[in-house]
């Protein structure tokens, strides 16, 4: 089989070494409805997700807020225990490990958080925050720790003299650099970035994204890059995975997804992306506007979870759950979970209007404003 790739990208495609293998992971959060509530309801945050990642790759994970992508990130980094399924990191199943056994693995698996304000302890100085990785994992002299921390600060573009400042004395972008420095400290092989730029100004987003890219090249990093915005992901990812209500609905090489997405949900997300790039403008379809709200993950729709909002939904979709599989004509590695995948040139926007009339729900809503 040929290596997947919908077009030549300048970025490294990753090696053949399998770094991460996520196998049918499920995470249900029990809903406590008080002592009188005897029902065993659960938020099905992640409901059977599988994917794998090779060293050096960047996987973009996209979906609306509440689709379970942040939970998935925390399952992959073993911050939450899985309800079922397996996560193998460098061939080792990390879902069965206890905290003590996990600790050595933490060195090679780090996370950058979404909120640059919440993820840094407001009562500790930056130098102290950045020395945490060393004091947890290594026994170094104070001078050595200080030297390493200042080295890190310089590497992510902060001035090392600000060692003694509190996080509140930095701007959002600078704080996110601190967060990146912290995750980088122990030279991990995998960094999960949970919407690292969504809290930042657009002008600063690009700086942070460039920094992440430089670091990837320098330290041979593998990224899982989470975003709710396809345009951000496109710049950094080799591959994209689209999530909807706890499930992957489509995954494939970045350019492939952008040029010929097969799932109606992906298509609708893409149609909401403002296109500045001339090359893509010709490909741009009419804007698809989804109707209704995201259903509750406590009680997801039957069959295909997207069917109540899908412009192409038919009777089968409500009954049978589609499998994530390669559709005819797609490259290997481009998988879609849909009974009636989109074909090139199809006009979904018209179909969408029909369903608006059928469902009769509130005002039409854009997925990504």
């Amino acid at each position, binding site marked *: 089989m040929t290596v997947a790739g919908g077009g030549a990208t300048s970025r490294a495609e990753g090696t053949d070494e399998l770094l991460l293998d996520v196998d049918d992971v499920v995470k249900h959060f029990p809903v406590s409805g008080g002592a009188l509530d005897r029902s065993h309801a659960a938020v099905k945050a992640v409901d059977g997700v599988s994917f794998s990642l090779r060293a050096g790759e960047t996987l973009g994970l996209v979906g609306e807020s509440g689709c379970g992508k942040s939970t998935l990130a*925390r399952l992959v*980094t073993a*911050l939450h225990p899985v309800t079922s399924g397996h996560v193998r990191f460098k061939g080792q199943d990390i879902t069965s490990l206890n905290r003590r056994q*996990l*600790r050595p693995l*933490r*060195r090679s698996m*780090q*996370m950058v*958080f*979404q*909120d640059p304000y*919440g*993820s*840094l*302890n*407001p*009562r*500790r100085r930056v130098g102290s925050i950045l020395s*945490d*990785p060393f004091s*947890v*994992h290594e026994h170094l002299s104070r001078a050595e720790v200080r030297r390493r921390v200042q080295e890190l600060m310089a590497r992510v573009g902060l001035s090392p003299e600000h060692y003694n*400042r*509190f996080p*509140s*004395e*930095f*701007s959002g972008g600078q704080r996110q650099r601190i*967060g990146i420095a*912290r*995750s980088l400290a122990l030279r991990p092989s995998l960094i999960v970035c949970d919407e690292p730029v969504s809290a930042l100004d657009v002008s600063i987003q690009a700086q942070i994204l460039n920094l992440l890219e430089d670091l990837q090249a320098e330290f041979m990093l593998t990224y899982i890059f989470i975003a709710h915005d396809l345009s951000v992901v496109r710049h950094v990812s080799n591959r994209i995975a689209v999530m909807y209500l706890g499930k992957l609905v489509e995954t494939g090489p970045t350019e492939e997804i952008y040029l010929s997405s097969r799932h109606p949900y992906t298509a609708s997300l893409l149609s909401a992306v403002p296109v500045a790039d001339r090359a893509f403008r010709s490909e741009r379809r009419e804007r698809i506007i989804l109707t209704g709200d995201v259903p509750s993950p406590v009680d997801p729709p039957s069959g295909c979870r997207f069917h109540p909002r899908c412009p192409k939904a038919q009777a089968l979709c409500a009954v049978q759950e589609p499998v994530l599989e390669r559709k005819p004509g797609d490259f290997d590695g481009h998988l879609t979970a849909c009974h009636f995948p989109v074909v090139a040139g199809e006009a979904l926007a018209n179909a969408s209007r029909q369903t608006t009339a059928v469902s009769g729900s509130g005002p039409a809503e854009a997925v990504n404003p």
Partner: protein
Amino acid sequence: MSAMRADELEIVEEEDPELNEQQFESRTPWRLAWRRLKKDRVAMVSLGFIVLLILVSLFAPLLTALIGHGPNAQYTTKGLSLSGIPVGPGHNGFLLGTDDQGRDVLSRIIYGSRISLEVGIGATFLALFLGVVVGLFAGYYGGFLDSVLGRFMDILLSFPILLLAIAIVARFGPSLGLLIFVISLFSWPYIGRLVRGQVISLREREFVEAARALGASDLRIMFVEIAPNLIALAVIYATLLIPVNIVTEATLSFLGLGVQPPTASWGNMIAEAQTGDLFTVAWWFLVFPCVALVLTTLAFNLLGDGLRDALDPRYGRSHISAARKVRRAFRLRRTLPEPEPVEAKA
């Protein structure tokens, strides 16, 4: 933001109380709190009084030597009138008069401040230690441990402190150490519950998750990540707990269960003034220890209030905004909007 100079900050602060939180964030938390506190005149006066009181109690022997009257010396000729009545304030060199045994009330008040501060501050520190540790564990681990510790604190809080103090002192006999122990035993749950609540909200913050992602142990997360965020809360409520504990000590001593005579404590001085209705002939003997006690508790309460405003600006602001909302709700009646009153600090 960090480039903004200090004098510019001042101006912003004067103009818009809503905006300055962000501006304030660009300074170290402690220095900002101190700057806010310095503006609070009532709190600063209280702080001054407390510092003075601490100095007085530290230098008690020196001060009484200067006055020339020891706290327990009985001046039967100079300090009592011929009929055995205590000498009033200002007579025979007794600035605040004497008590029924001819002892200098001022010297005794000075020595009594030692007891009050020792017990008040000592018991508070002990309570703080217990409360923070238990609150940290209960709040951080949650679940069964939390419900057991939470219930335990609830039970202790619903117990009448004084009653149990009575029971314990009755059984083991009064002593200063026991007094501190008993008072802290029943005041720590107060801190413990506050800390627990705070920890429950802190443990969900991303920086705790970040520490976990680094592989930090629970103890490290509790004491390195969470504990520094509790300092403001602990300082505020310790300051408010000190006067409570001082009053408890005075009350126990008043009931004869605390500091035993002849050692002077404000509580037992008041009790001595009450025996045989002596205070009706010698009011100073009652009034001056009372004044000392009330001023001390008042100073700590006012300082605590000021600290709360200074260290936790959200607290003060929430009340201001509540007041604003009320006005907004009732403004429906009026056709013309009333001018927004300036939110002056009380």
